[in-house]
């Protein structure tokens, strides 16, 4: 097809977090509205609903209200995903509610985000929630933080107010180890510095929110990470034409794989070389994260779903002991001695909670020794004893193969999000 000039855009996934009255819904509505992502019939519905509530102007916050249960209670109960695009980028926004009890939603939204947008109300400055949001983003390995200092119109666009909030936030980011922080003074309600530059902030020379979202670097350089390739599925065609074909389908989680590379298959530790890479449109010389491909290997070794193909010279050591930080997502408490399932990559193994060792206070960002039960929204460190070895990486180094889930061993529900901690940097 040559008649269509398909635009190539990059994709940025980001998450928003804010406390209840920071105006997050209004900001998200403003972003959607000002990037022309809201179509006339949707806007008309919002205007009707606004009038029904006795409002004069369209309440853009209503654009992001989803379920009837939420509208009736005026709250957001879950992560909602929003989509908008500009000429050079597409955006996937994980919109997470800001109540204290929704740490788990922030963690969920941040898990796939490259940037976290944290909102504060300019009148109130940094509050406990701000620290929690920034900490959750940092814990989940989000490398870029954007601070939206909202409601600047209510403090007369005062530069001093903005500066002092920035200074305080910079301290928090520094203590969390996040280097990339950009703060933007804005008014979601009026649209100042969201998409269009504001005439009320002549003292501000930085980007508008959308300019920043369009410029922040996306993705990671796969040359800097060792190969990690969880095997999803074995492809064995039944046709005669492909009689001896056997390839391992999966998605490159980290790094780069080239034909001829020496790789190790974990947990067995067998070494082989990559004979061919089948891309979705034919053979490739190399593939990188997050491409979905299939690998053909030089040696006929036993490989199945759950195995992990890794760079031979930089593979994680499979172990039956796993130390990790977990955020509890369900109402089932997690205590020492619990039997659970651990899902890592494409592998699911039985496990026992050997010990709970610490709990993190998201507000003070301090970790303290703790061996009691971990409840929903708690973040704690624990040691797991696994029925079979798993090759987990340190989450801080390799996000996708450092991540794991704890599942209920009976009904299969998701209990906790886990981030593996390499033994050498144990702090807890």
């Amino acid at each position, binding site marked *: *097809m040559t*008649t*269509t000039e*398909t635009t*190539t*855009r*990059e*994709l940025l996934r980001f998450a928003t977090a804010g406390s209840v009255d920071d105006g997050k819904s209004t900001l998200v509505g403003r972003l959607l509205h000002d990037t022309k992502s809201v*179509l*006339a*019939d*949707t806007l008309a*519905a919002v205007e009707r609903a606004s009038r029904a509530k006795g409002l004069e102007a369209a309440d853009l916050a209503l654009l992001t209200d*989803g*379920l*009837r*249960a939420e509208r009736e209670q005026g709250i957001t109960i*879950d*992560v909602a*995903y*929003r*989509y908008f*695009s500009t000429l050079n980028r*597409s955006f*996937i926004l994980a919109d997470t509610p800001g109540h204290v009890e929704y740490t*788990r939603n922030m*963690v*969920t939204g941040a898990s*796939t985000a490259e940037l976290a947008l944290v909102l504060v109300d300019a009148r109130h400055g940094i509050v406990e929630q701000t620290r929690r949001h920034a900490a959750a983003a940092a814990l989940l390995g989000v490398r870029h933080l954007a601070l939206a200092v909202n409601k600047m119109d209510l403090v007369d666009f005062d530069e001093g107010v903005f500066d002092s909030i920035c200074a305080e936030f910079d301290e928090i980011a520094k203590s969390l180890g996040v280097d990339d922080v950009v703060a933007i003074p804005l008014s979601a309600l009026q649209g100042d510095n969201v998409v269009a530059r504001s005439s009320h902030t002549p003292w501000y020379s930085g980007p508008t929110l959308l300019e920043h979202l369009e410029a922040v670097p*996306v*993705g990671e350089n796969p*040359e800097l990470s060792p190969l990690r390739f969880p095997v*999803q*599925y074995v492809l064995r*065609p*039944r*046709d005669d*034409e*492909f009689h001896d*074909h056997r390839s391992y*389908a*999966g*998605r490159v989680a980290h790094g*780069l794989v080239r034909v001829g590379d020496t790789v190790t298959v974990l947990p067995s530790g067998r070494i082989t070389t990559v004979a061919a890479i*089948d891309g*979705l*449109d034919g053979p490739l010389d190399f593939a*990188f994260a*997050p*491409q*979905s491909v299939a690998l053909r290997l030089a040696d006929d070794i036993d490989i199945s*779903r759950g195995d992990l193909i890794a760079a031979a010279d930089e593979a994680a050591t499979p172990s039956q002991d796993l130390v990790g930080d977990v955020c509890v997502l369900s109402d089932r408490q997690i205590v020492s001695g619990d039997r659970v*399932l651990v*899902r890592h990559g494409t592998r699911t193994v039985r496990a026992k909670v050997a010990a709970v060792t610490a709990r993190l206070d998201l507000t003070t960002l301090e970790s303290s020794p703790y061996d009691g039960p971990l409840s929903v929204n708690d973040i704690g460190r624990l040691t797991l004893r696994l029925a079979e070895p798993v090759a987990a990486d340190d989450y801080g180094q390799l996000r996708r193969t450092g*991540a794991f*889930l704890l*599942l209920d061993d009976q*009904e*299969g529900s*998701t209990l906790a999000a886990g981030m593996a901690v390499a033994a050498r940097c144990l702090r807890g």
Partner: protein
Amino acid sequence: MPAYQLSQLDTLEAEAVHIMREVAGEFDRPVLLFSGGKDSVVMLHLAAKAFAPAQIPFPLLHVDTGHNFPEVMTYRDEAVEHYGVELRVASVQDFIDSGRLRERPDGTRNPLQTVPLLDAIDTNRFDAVFGGGRRDEEKARAKERVFSLRDEFGQWDPKRQRPELWDLYNGRHRAGEHVRVFPLSNWTEVDIWEYIAREDIALPQIYYAHERDVFLRDGMWLTAGEWGGPKQSETVERRVVRYRTVGDMSCTGAVDSHAATVAEVIAEVAVSTITERGATRADDRLTEAAMEDRKREGYF
């Protein structure tokens, strides 16, 4: 774009393929819902790429309302032939004939699809059901998971949905429960069309501008047909139209359009001021929470 940077289409394609392979690896009896609509056509194309050179390792299921566009039925049968997949059909008409479903006063059969769908899932013991739903379509869908757990009655409970982190999809379920899987969750309507263009995917002809006998109802151009339209007060006229979505003939409206090629459709969608469901789906206009309610009952 820098080296090692994927475009948004490549990223979405890699994600959808990853999701489909997860299902093939984790479930015993998956099935792909296929209506001949563009989203299900894109899913089928992705499935072929995900498992090549092997066959697609699951059948297709068509929930047939009996109010089909003939062009779409022809297309469906050709696609089945082309991809060498097995087709199962769950027929709304059969359920009406046997008295298990009753025709609605408005003649619309879209809401009637839920019962035959759940029956087919039960009798075939399907444990994973691929649907083409996208989060950008509708606000209840914006909160949908990629792996969406349904109870033994096929019901969706937004409060019981599992948090979904990283790309670790949790497909575990108890006997009798099943999981709906939405590989196109993160695609937008424009992404779908750009992908159709890039991959040169054939679609049923009704997606492109053509002349058709239509009549106006609730601001939509509906096709005259055996299903019951037009009423006496409605007049049929010949217009150049195309469809933005494909569903039951009785509630899927056409839009005035001269977009006869993929490129022209993309240009049209890019400047459209109306959402595709708002423009063309009577079933979503029933109430503010129409989709939320139907999803709860086990709809797609």
